């Protein structure tokens, strides 16, 4: 194998992985100039970011990637719901929510699959 062939995956990593990803962070640095911590703009921007995050969550659960797709949809949605219930039930323990959600997913997959 030539040197070029060996290095090609790393060149691709820089060009189509690092650059299109990092550009948004750097644009964020520019856009945040002059924005005050307690401004109304921040509340709106945080709402937008939170809504996108919710979108990422529900898209992974419904349109699951890779091995997660082998678990029935009902088990994925049920596990998500149980995770939230556990979080609230254990007075705001994120760990309880995450552990319950993952356990429920495995149990659900075994029962429904």
């Amino acid at each position: 194998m030539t040197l070029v062939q060996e290095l090609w995956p790393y060149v691709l990593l820089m060009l189509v992985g690092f650059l299109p990803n990092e550009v948004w962070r750097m644009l964020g640095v520019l856009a945040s100039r002059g924005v005050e911590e307690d401004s109304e703009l921040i509340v709106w921007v945080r709402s937008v970011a939170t809504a996108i995050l919710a979108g990422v969550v529900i898209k992974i659960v419904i349109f699951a990637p890779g091995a997660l797709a082998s678990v029935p949809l009902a088990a994925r949605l049920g596990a998500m719901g149980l995770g939230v219930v556990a979080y609230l039930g254990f007075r705001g323990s994120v760990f309880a929510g995450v552990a319950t959600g993952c356990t429920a997913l495995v149990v659900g997959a075994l029962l429904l699959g």
Partner: protein
Amino acid sequence: MSSAAGFVAGVKAARTSVFTYVIIGTYISIGALGHDYGFSALWVALSTLLVWAGPAQVILITLLGSGAAPLEVALAVGLSAMRLLPMVVALLPLLKRPDSRVRSLLLPAHFIAASMWMEALRLAPRVPREGRIGLVNGIGTCFISVAVLSGFAGFYLAERLPVLFVAALLFLTPISFLVSAIRNARLLADRLALAIGLVVAPMLTIYGINLDLLWTGLIGGSAAYAIHRLREAMQ
């Protein structure tokens, strides 16, 4: 508080953060994915250091590994990474001081990913302003180091991991993001944005709307903010 003391506080916070465990599981699954698609362990580690965003890395590995055109891969990665912009804009004003240089904000900005963003939003207000950039760098350094090591572990364990176990690891991302976002939602605007986003995103996807996550953010975030303002005005 000095910057170094902030960094130490960040390392301590990362050690007890539930996200450290979430990152271990998630990056074991990403390492295994990289192995299955024929990348080297070094390549996977570099992608973690340079990209540092789980969903973007999954897209990068699966698309490049299945021979997609580089331009198509760049577009898909870029679209998934758009959400980083509002995260950076919402966090940096909490970190900087009037005399902060742009240069000192580049590393904290690079460390921003969903996990680190939620921890930093929650913890930064509890630390004096001088220590906040150090705090964020401490959390980020820990998270990214754990991610690189877990990626190696996943890469070398790939052939021995049961499918259901990998499924549970992949489930760590959505469940931890959701529960932490609920914890972080102090204002009505945050709670509504979360609820509306959960409903709107799958609808836009099912109807085949392009840039569905971008629209989810703009529609869900703006509607949530408007209702929050309306309620404040009425009180």
